[in-house]
């Protein structure tokens, strides 16, 4: 394994609060090893800033293994950065070259107001799920798990849709700041399964209505969402969501 050191220049969006003006500031990142993760590189920069008495760059993170969906920023214009199927916490510095300039921005969308610097408020996603992204099953009232066989193929498809980590990259990448991929993934996951049938029509209608109310745009088939999704959630689910909506309209 090689262990080169990189010297980089970061242009970072700094914004003190939700309704305050923001702008880019430039910081050097020196002596960065290629084995560091992108967020570890930011940790190093931040520790230097703190020791110098400056405020560190605020960015969200938690599990740092690509599953919790907390992290997310736009790196050189691409949500989560240059490596496909990779969250920014799993992106490593060997993807960058010595001397490179890196531009860092928060998710930019009406539905995701900036909290500070690169941190945004994604509670709109929670509200979309609250609008109907569940099966109404009371604790303790479930029947025997093997009572309803589910064909393997259907279970696998449901799992494909359920892979979504709720990071919001799809919204950040979409020219319309649409939350269609996120919403469609949950609608599809549940509508594929027998357990999700009773509330199927209602669920699609309510979740889509909530998505609109949160100020996310409509889908116009750009496909940017699928391209940046770290879990490879497919745009086919958006087509399925639209079918579910039509189905619910016809049935009502």
């Amino acid at each position, binding site marked *: 394994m090689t*262990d080169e050191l990189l010297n980089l220049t970061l242009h970072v969006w700094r914004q003190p609060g939700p309704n305050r003006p923001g702008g880019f500031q430039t910081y050097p990142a020196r002596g960065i090893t290629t084995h560091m993760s992108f967020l570890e590189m930011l940790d190093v920069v931040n520790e230097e800033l703190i020791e110098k*008495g400056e405020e*560190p760059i605020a960015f969200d993170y938690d599990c*740092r293994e690509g599953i919790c969906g907390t992290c997310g920023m736009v790196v050189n214009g691409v949500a989560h950065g240059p490596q496909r199927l990779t969250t920014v916490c799993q992106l490593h510095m060997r993807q960058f070259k010595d001397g490179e300039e890196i531009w860092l921005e928060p998710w930019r969308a009406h539905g995701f107001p900036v909290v500070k610097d690169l941190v945004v408020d994604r509670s709109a996603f929670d509200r979309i*799920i609250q609008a109907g992204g569940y*099966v109404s099953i009371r*604790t*303790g009232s479930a029947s*025997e798990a093997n009572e309803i066989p589910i*064909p393997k193929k259907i279970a696998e498809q449901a799992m494909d849709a359920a892979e979504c980590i709720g990071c919001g990259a799809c919204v950040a990448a979409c020219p319309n700041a649409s939350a269609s991929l996120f919403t469609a993934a949950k609608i599809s996951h549940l509508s594929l399964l027998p357990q999700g049938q009773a509330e199927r029509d209602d669920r699609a209608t309510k979740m889509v209505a909530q998505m609109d109310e949160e100020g996310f745009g409509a889908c116009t088939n750009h496909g940017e969402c699928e391209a940046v999704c770290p879990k490879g959630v497919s745009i086919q689910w958006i087509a399925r969501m639209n079918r579910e909506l039509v189905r619910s309209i016809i049935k009502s």
Partner: protein
Amino acid sequence: MELRSHEPTGPIEERWEKHKEASKLVAPANRRRYNIIVVGSGLAGGAAAASLGEMGYNVQCFCYQDSPRRAHSIAAQGGINAAKNYQNDGDSVYRLFYDTVKGGDFRSRESNVYRLSELSLHIIDQAVAQGVPFAREYGGLLANRSFGGAQVSRTFYARGQTGQQLLLGAYQALSRQIEAGTVQMHSRHEMLELIVHDGRARGIVTRCLKTGEIKPHIADMVVLCSGGYGNVFYLSTNAKGCNVTATWRAHRHGAAFANPCYTQIHPTCIPQAGSYQSKLTLMSESLRNDGRVWVPRNKEDVTKRPEDIPESDRCYYLEERYPAFGNLVPRDVASRNALYVTNDGLGVGPEVDGERRGVYLDFSDAIGRLGEQTIRERYGNLFEMYERITGDSPYKTPMRIYPATHYTMGGLWVDYNLETTIPGLFAGGEANFSDHGANRLGASALMQGLADGYFVLPFTVGNYLGQVRTLPPLAEDHPDVQSAITSVNERITKLMNAPDPKHAPEHFHRELGKIIWHKCGMSRTAEGLKEALEQIPKLREQFWREVKITGNGEDFNQTLERAGRVADFFELGELMCIDALERNESCGGHFREEYQENGEALRDDAEFSYVSAWEWSGNPAEPRLHKEPLTFEYVKPTKRSYK
């Protein structure tokens, strides 16, 4: 302090039913009059909040993450155990109970473990009904696998993301209750203090992480499901935000902390690559089914490329030392042996702080035998993850692995009702100590979190409220509430104004982690623990003198958040070492080098068959020990041996 387990007596398979029959209930129409605080939104907290909301209680749920869907339960890969016996291979509630008590090295409470094993059946039913997409067979029925050396196939899984899917199931149930108005969710809120009034837990003080606002929340009772304390090691497989603060604040108010020295080290993680490293990533244990673990036989070979080291110069140390189990020895044995070979200077990979901490996990034999395609089908996603992090392809060169802290069995002491030693304060999931003894079996953490959250707490909480009936109202200006708020504010002021600010909190956290990892990690000695107990207080003083936090407290300030957590890890770390020093035996995750027989852990049942429950005395160096004796009526203690 008196430790009363309140466990029922009589035949073990009747205890939980009997206990439920004898418990108090709250009538449906009365439930909305009670306010319950749940801290944490992982499997235990999310499931408890959702279930209590469904029953009609008023629930306030808090999490430090920006959404309840992000709790660290989400990162569990392998699966969840349940004694369904769908494979007809001889599994039963009793066998799962037996395996768990034995796996815990006879340091858990039999009644609790039996209940866990019984409830495992309902968890799977509940999760399937929620739409959790478990793996299935072609006939459409649920698939199972054998996990962590179990002799039956009882593990249910959803690809490598079982924790994620189960958590999303609980999150969806929680979201439904938020929509219904029974649960009020407070994301990006951190509990910084417990409010105790008249000897009962009556609320918490939180800091809003977005605005810095400090606020009291008053209720009839408090449930802590705030996870484990693995991040005391600084580097662990936990999420960066995981912390001990909620349980530690409770401990300082009188909740006993049980068995803090029982921590679990997972043998197959990606080794540390540099001193800047922020966390360690776990690779599924299943890799040991086909990978062979080795190190160079000679020290001069450690810097060579593994391909250049001839077969005769490789030491397959697990196969040599444990011919019967080979590379599949249990987690603790595999981990400790990796420590020994690297202590002998045979570790491989990059040098970090003067040491090479890594061993090879080699798939070349398996690829030769089964073909690359088969290996790709079995481990493709893990190999990709490894390559993304290290830049090396395990198809071409051996993986490097090393053990890392993964789970903490210790936690707040709770009785059979999951109530702590503070009346009205309950603890569920990894935050309590209850079910895993000195060592947790694979695929049992998800099971315990959900059993506590869906099926135990909703019931025992009702029993508590049914007993206390009506608590007197507590106003925000009451001195007990005000003193909790003052304590939070004073601490923040103290952290923000260290006398000689020099370093970010991470600096001190890393140093603390090194002490704990070396002295209270995989292998412990009385001498090392005594050294740690001298070093930790000194480092803690230095922390309070030199910690540097920029920005201010009335704002989004991640440095301040971390500093508060590190401060609590110092006190917990000291207690861990005290506990490890007191326990003069080896059991499960606690290995004291002085107590071994032919390299195997040597338990001392005559002297140490008890739960160590520590009471806060006001001085972190002098906690008071209380003992809950453990008796084994069903599973008679035997020695674990893998030779």
